[in-house]
């Protein structure tokens, strides 16, 4: 195993941190001879996007604080996006179910890679690195139903790409989430109210 991580360490890392990009960021820093502090800082920045994501699902979780904190651990990009109902609420069971499936595949994938990685070869030759962005692209196209959401997506893209050369990995995505503050405008809020009243069940 490269990067100074033993097979066991790689598997444990996957099992308890369960966040691909953060793991790769910190492993590459340790592998390049960087210190533990730099590696942890990199992983923290990569995972900082879970702050707005888990805040968004927070009100959709049932149960007491401990239960909600535990449910928050299941927030990962793909299942977060899939479980969004599009009205500001989330399906907590879809979120946890999708994450459970992703978790099992992620950990078993790490086990396979750690033990037989040399025999399989470079996963990028199978184009696997395009799978997640393509999947997110598909989810994104479903979100672009209004002019406002298209504008926010464009703003998020620009913010992220502008910051890539300037900030450590992870920061561009976190800052891009600020594009959603367009929702604070009077018109955006008025439309939400209108829709909730039309549905007859104000939340």
């Amino acid at each position, binding site marked *: 195993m490269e990067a100074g991580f033993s097979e066991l360490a790689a598997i444990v890392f996957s099992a308890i941190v369960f966040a691909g990009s953060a793991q790769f960021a910190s492993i590459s820093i340790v592998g390049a001879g960087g210190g533990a502090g730099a590696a942890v800082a990199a992983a923290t920045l990569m995972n900082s996007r879970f702050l707005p994501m888990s805040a968004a699902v*927070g*009100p959709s979780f049932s149960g007491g604080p401990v239960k909600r904190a535990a449910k928050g651990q299941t927030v990962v990009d793909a299942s977060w996006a899939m479980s969004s109902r599009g009205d500001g609420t989330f399906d907590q069971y879809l979120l946890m179910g999708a994450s459970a499936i992703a978790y099992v595949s992620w950990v078993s994938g790490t086990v396979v890679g750690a033990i037989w990685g040399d025999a399989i070869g470079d996963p990028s030759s199978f184009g696997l690195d395009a799978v997640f962005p393509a999947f997110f692209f598909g989810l994104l196209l479903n979100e672009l139903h209004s002019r406002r959401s298209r504008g926010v997506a464009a703003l998020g893209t620009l913010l992220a790409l502008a910051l890539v050369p300037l900030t450590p990995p992870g920061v561009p995505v976190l800052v891009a989430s600020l594009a959603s503050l367009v929702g604070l405008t009077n018109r955006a809020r008025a439309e939400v109210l209108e829709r909730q009243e039309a549905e007859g069940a104000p939340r």
Partner: protein
Amino acid sequence: MSIPAIVIAASCAITAAIKAVGPVALGGRELPTWFTSVVILLSPALLAALVATQAFANGDHLAIGADTAGVAAGGLVIWRTGSIIACVVLAAAVTAGVRAI
């Protein structure tokens, strides 16, 4: 403790805290309108940023590669057919194909 062990333990604790803050602070409440309005727009903002940083960047620099072509092909498929499975499969196939050339 070895460096990997420290990195694993610290990353684990910090990630758990990041994911717990929102649900503990905001759980079980009614959503104010402004919050709902922002959350609805959080999906397009974050998804667009994830796509952009994964397809058009390589770590800390902007880069167009085989994966950019793959994601573009996948996007075309989902736009025309609406199938997310076909989109993902084609994205991987095109990326692998371009890389093999």
